């Protein structure tokens, strides 16, 4: 049986311990510690806040304040791919709302959830991506897509969707 998932877990915790050790007995270093933790886990787990509190002797109430203050930190696990959709004025006028809808439909997001159940995607509506000239715009990870129409969305997202690819491959074999 494959237990690479377990190994990955171990690796992450070893990395966490290394980070904590590096910053032990330092002051004023909460943000770099949290950034490293987010690099390791993809988000900041609550348990990691407790660890940081213990090692850096900073109250967890204070660390929580920092984590929730900055948009760059996330308390929930996020999908493998980050979709950022512009909801700014230009994109809104050009039908950005329809793009957002097409994405939530494709990912099956309900009740304000922003991450797909298979952890493949997290949707982040943003205020502006700085590409108003090609509105409506979305970015998947570092790739930008402009002058979008809602019906283009599924094909674009499918490129990043490893699960879907796998399923399609299985279909072909069958």
């Amino acid at each position, binding site marked *: 049986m494959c237990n690479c998932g377990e190994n990955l877990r171990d690796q992450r915790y070893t990395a966490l311990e290394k980070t904590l050790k590096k910053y032990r007995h330092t002051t004023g270093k909460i943000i770099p510690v949290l950034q490293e933790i987010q690099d390791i886990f993809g988000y900041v787990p609550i348990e990691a806040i407790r660890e940081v*509190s213990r090692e850096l002797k900073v109250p967890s109430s204070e660390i929580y304040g920092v984590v929730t203050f900055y948009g760059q930190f996330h308390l929930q696990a996020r999908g493998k791919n980050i979709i950022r959709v512009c909801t700014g004025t230009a994109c809104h006028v050009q039908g950005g709302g329809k793009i957002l809808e097409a994405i939530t439909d494709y990912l099956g997001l309900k009740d304000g959830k922003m991450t797909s159940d298979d952890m493949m995607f997290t949707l982040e509506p943003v205020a502006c991506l700085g590409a108003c000239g090609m509105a409506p715009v979305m970015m998947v990870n570092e790739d930008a897509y402009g002058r979008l129409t809602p019906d283009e969305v599924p094909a674009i997202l499918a490129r990043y969707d490893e699960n879907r690819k796998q399923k399609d491959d299985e279909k072909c074999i069958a």
Partner: protein
Amino acid sequence: MTAITVSINGIKTTVPEGTSILQAAAGAGVHIPTLCFHPDQEVKANCRICVVEVEGRNNLAPACATAVSEGMVIKTATRRVLAARRTILELILARHPQDCLHCSRNGTCELQQLAAEYDVRYNRFPRDEWQLPLDYSTPGIVRDPNKCVLCHRCIEVCTAVQTVNALGLANRGYDTQVVPSIDHDLFESPCVMCGQCIHACPVAAITERDQIDELMEAISDPEKVVVTQIAPAVRLALSEEFGGEPGRLRMEQLVDGLQKIGFDYVLHTNFAADLTIWEEGHELLERLQEGRNLPMFTSCCPGWVRFAEVYYPGLLNHLSTCKSPQQMFGALVKTYWAEKMGIDPEKIVSVSIMPCTAKKYEAVRPEMIDSRYADVDMVLTTREIARLFRMTGIDPLKLAGAFPAPWMGEYTGAAVLFGASGGVMEAALRTVCELQGGTLEKIDFCDVRGMKGVKEATVYLNGKPVRVAVAHSLSNARVLMEQVAAGESPYHFIEVMACPGGCIGGGGQPLTRTDRDRARRMQAIYDEDRGRQRRKAHENQEVKALYQDYLGSVMSHKAHELLHTRYTLKRKNT
């Protein structure tokens, strides 16, 4: 220091350099409204209600956070200033629940006062309340996050004064909230329920858990025998709620008033305070003799005990095993006292009246059932009792007075001292010194009195020096605890009270702002002690009778069963 002359509303005033506009104005007799400002705290400048106009400056200046400069011309009540203040109030009120008539701070709310002062008659902004659930997770304190005005005063008292770190901020901008550690329940945070945040809060975002209805139900039940104990710090602060100086209300009047409300028997926690000194004094002598688990810390204060359980679980053997007076009393009222009075303990409802919100928690600690019943059934704070008096139309200051019930109603001046920081120490020293033989000539230990954060003294027992320390506010307790953890504590015996000033400044007391209020209550404690005929715990005749008739001797097996306890690690989101 350079003197600086400024003009405030045309009044010339000279103040030292570094003075804020707010302070300068107060000195010149000019009132500037405040909300996030607290006289005993750091300047926060986040509510902006204190804005004023400064000539030559484009924007309005926050008076609390702007230092005066030479020749400054300040106007505190121009049309622009008043309009800005009213807008600020409208914005705060648009998010604040409008249930003033049902609110426990109705009449004492700083926001309500400001709204009245600034004649806010309408609100141009749409209502946008949080609609968050109330936090009833702790037995002592209730948080209503909807009412929070984000002044940060609770956070400062919790982190700087108490170093408990239960409260912090979450999110930013319009979404900012004050939350218990990592936004879990307050009970999962390191909160010790000291209630100092209640005093700091300008509104009713943090209040005590009210038990008046529960009490009235017991009082109206003819089957129940409602017995109460009064803590020493309650009486003197209660006077303030009825317009009297601290201590003007006599203990007899309070007893009378409680009987009129419908309590069947009124007794005194003070009795159990004297008893505590017998047990704790002997415990100290034993530890000194064996050189074991020193320094010994007092354990009367439930906020302090929980603090130690959360932050110093490895040092719990340094705490005295004695229960607090409230819990000693509770264990005895349904055993010894019930037996003496011929009352079925099952029918007894044991109520305690405390200056403290943490006592509500202490009463429901699962191990506090040594009488085979709940030792203390409910705890009401001084504020709740004041409300009860008002509700029932009784002005206790006008009552003739009555006497407590027998067997557990007598007390000495030593017991009274428990209400002020340093009091348990002084009471213990009076007894311990005499237990070693001889009579004390001077029984006032002035070194352990007063508002200083950590007080020290050295006494001689059998010619050997015993070093004692007294800490109030948990930040000071932390300093002494860190010394113990590092193996560097020079002390043998340490008293800790969680609240500034001790129980007189407790979380259940009438709303208290400054150390000056606390010092006045402290003085009333020493006045009462001085006026009592017996001033040493070991002179309490009813305590002697308890040992003779029931417990056998000090630290006997039975005494251990009923009067001592143990402490356990409490894992919280520290």
